């Protein structure tokens, strides 16, 4: 330990002797790592799996059940009609299944209060178990039938009532009376893969949850995508919306085994063939069963700006590494005489390498500090310039450990060649210089 402290003291003396080249090396390395780390934060968070324990079991089925013969764009619609979902729900194969869409509304306790704008997830009972949504108070609807009941998030309950235990309380949702049946615990699924259409996976969780049948009865239109493929009047959602080709629903199924997945594919195939035979859709079948982990790339929703910037920041980190190595080499070559003198006085090459490790440790410490500061500033700047990704700016332990490791590796690489060259040169030549 005493020896190690001695090595650290020697390193510090070396820094004090020529502080500017050392500071420049640290600065360049910190900036390179900080910029890389800022972008890596977004890249890591955007590509993380929010449900690692079951994301390979959740699937998004899509059918080309539309009442027209496609000529140019024959892609399967991204959203389903109410009748499509009814047909897909009849298989009995999935362990759990839930249809959903989102809408905007206004909530208040009574008519005298100012309305609170809310995002409503209109869905079915299995939504909460499919996506492991935690409940704080109350219970989820017992079935999928229409009921004037809502489930509130913890934040919405606190905003409205100032407390969370509000099960049984009455509310006005767009001037209609509803009762609170449950309150969710703090929950944020990021990225929000259950709604990946139109880049919605980058959005915050919804404020309240309403049964699907009630949403149709109350005539809520999707605020994300709503397409009509026939003469359905979308103002008549509760009637025509249930029978016509008004597509706005997303549907998720849980298929735990390969056999279940195969059976569901076969079911979809048979369903489409039967519908085609009955003359209810003229287009060629084009069924899709997309796994949750592939849903963002299927919808083309990957953040291309973050990907492009990742390539560039990697390049920048390389430039900074080369630059820092260059500065470091100059610094070590300037100190070559000192290395030669120490070797002449009996220090072995391995002892000089231990000295080098002390240098690496100090450099890594300074670099980590600088990189964290630069990374933090970089994240703030990126949030400002690319606000769509603002929810993905958090650091977690894995990321921090990765940064520490990367900083140590970079410091080691920057110091390795110069110190080897300084300590492995010819002793005579070193002393002569």
């Amino acid at each position, binding site marked *: 330990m005493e020896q190690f402290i001695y090595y650290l003291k020697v390193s510090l003396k070396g820094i004090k002797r020529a502080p500017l*080249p050392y500071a*420049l090396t640290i600065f*360049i390395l910190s*900036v*390179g790592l900080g*910029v890389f780390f800022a972008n890596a934060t977004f890249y890591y968070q955007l590509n993380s799996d929010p449900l690692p324990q079951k994301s390979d079991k959740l699937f998004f089925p899509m059918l080309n059940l539309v009442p027209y013969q496609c*000529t*140019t*764009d024959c892609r399967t619609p991204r959203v389903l009609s109410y009748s499509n979902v009814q047909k897909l729900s009849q298989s009995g194969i999935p362990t759990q299944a839930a249809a959903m869409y989102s*809408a*905007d509304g*206004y909530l208040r306790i009574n008519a005298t209060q100012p*309305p609170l*704008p809310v995002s409503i997830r209109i869905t079915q009972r299995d939504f909460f178990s499919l996506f492991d949504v935690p409940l704080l108070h109350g219970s989820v609807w017992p079935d999928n039938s229409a009921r004037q009941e809502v489930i509130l998030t913890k934040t919405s309950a606190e905003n409205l009532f100032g407390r969370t235990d509000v099960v049984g309380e009455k509310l006005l949702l*767009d*001037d*209609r009376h509803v009762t609170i049946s449950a309150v969710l615990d703090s929950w944020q699924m990021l990225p929000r893969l259950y709604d990946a259409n*139109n880049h919605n996976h980058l959005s915050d969780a919804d404020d309240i949850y309403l049964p699907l049948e009630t949403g149709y009865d109350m005539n*809520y*239109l999707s*605020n994300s995508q709503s397409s009509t493929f026939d003469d359905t009047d*979308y*103002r008549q959602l509760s009637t025509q919306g249930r029978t016509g080709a008004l597509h706005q629903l997303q549907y998720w199924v849980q298929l735990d085994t390969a056999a279940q997945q195969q059976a569901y594919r076969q079911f979809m195939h048979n369903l489409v063939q039967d519908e085609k035979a009955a003359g209810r859709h003229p287009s060629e079948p084009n069924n899709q069963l997309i796994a949750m982990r592939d849903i963002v790339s299927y919808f083309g929703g990957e953040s*291309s*700006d973050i*990907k*492009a*910037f990742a*390539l*560039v*920041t990697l*390049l*920048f980190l*390389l*430039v*900074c590494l*080369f*630059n820092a*190595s*260059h*500065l470091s*080499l*100059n610094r070590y*070559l*300037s100190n070559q005489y000192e290395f030669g003198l120490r070797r002449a006085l009996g220090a072995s090459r391995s002892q000089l390498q231990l000295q080098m490790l002390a240098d690496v440790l100090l450099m890594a410490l300074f670099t980590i500090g600088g990189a964290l500061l630069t990374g933090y500033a970089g994240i703030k*700047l*990126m949030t400002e*310039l*690319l*606000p*769509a990704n603002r929810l993905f700016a958090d650091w977690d332990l894995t990321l921090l450990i990765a940064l520490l490791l990367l900083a140590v590796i970079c410091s080691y690489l920057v110091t390795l*060649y110069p110190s080897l060259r300084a300590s492995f040169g010819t002793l005579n030549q070193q002393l002569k210089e």
Partner: protein
Amino acid sequence: MSLYLLFKGLLSRKVVTILLLLQLAMTLALLLNSVLLAQQTHKQLNQPTGMDLDNIVLVQLKPTTASLRVYPALEELLNRQLNAVSALPDVVAAAYANQSALLQGGNNGNVYLDGEEGRTNQPSVPMYFVSKEFFRVLDSQVLQGELPQHSVSLDNPVRPDVVITQSLAKQLFADKSAIGQQLNRGRLAAVISDFYGQRSGDNVMYNSIQVAPPYGVDWGYSILLRVTPGRAGAVRQQLDQVLRQVEPNIEIFHIRTLAEQHQRLYRNEYGLAMLLTILSALMLLVTMVSSYSSTHFHALKRQQEIGIKRALGASKNSIFIELLSENWLCTLVGALFGVVLALLLNQALAQVISIPSLNGYLPVMTIMALLLCVTLATWYPAAIATRISPASATKAL
């Protein structure tokens, strides 16, 4: 000063030179692609929109009570709001619309000639349901036909007449007269000058407009105002209060000029171009530090050599030029590699974002900028090196 000797000098310190060349090449590659992206964003932001963006104010709003979102209460609310904002000083014209121009996506659908869907269908054409002053707000020029003068309900058995923009008319009818033709949305009444509709559409200038109250306002609606030039700021300050006085049960999402709306439409491209510009500036800074340090260190190492040259009659100027020339040579060699690297980076970036290809003059301009930065960085250490006196440098011999 011989080019051969300059190369020899660089090769005598291979590792340092290679590191420097790599940095310079990567810096140039990034710089070139950042400039390309910045140029593209600038071009997008300056493309013609067919509207006087600075003098049109957009209000996006929605009634907060369900009863105000259905007819006839909705139509009465729309008219009250229009009357109130039209009475404001400096408001030249005001109109409501189911949606604004300059959007990413929105309310859109197919447009085709009746009975010729297969041949003439144009998908994803924005559908505007507006009050009749809409055309005055946009200052649209009527190129064919006459604008509809009365609002007709979309539920009317005879559908309201349709107005389309010039680009869409050209696509549907080529150079033939279009007026009176029957489209799937109604009879064509007029063709107006182009304006920027939705970015996600096949052609941003394709638009179809009907003078009719919107079907519904579940997604909110827009009030658009043309104001006296230079008075947009003053008008927008009053809008919130005026609209809430007319009807307090509304949510106003935003009040902004169409210039701001346009900027927001390209916010991602702007953000990425800004980030790359900042990164390029950092890269140039890093390269300057590198050039400075390299020149400074090697001038120190070559004190004796410089002293001898000075003793043999070399002027301060020639020493100064020699040191700068070494850096210029290094920069030019690095830049050549950089152009190749820039092409590769350009292709890699094109896989994930929309970026134009490299053109002829840009690499030359960027190399000049890089040379300027390197010259600035090496100026001071090169000037210091010229102060080495022949006597002090040769005394060690």
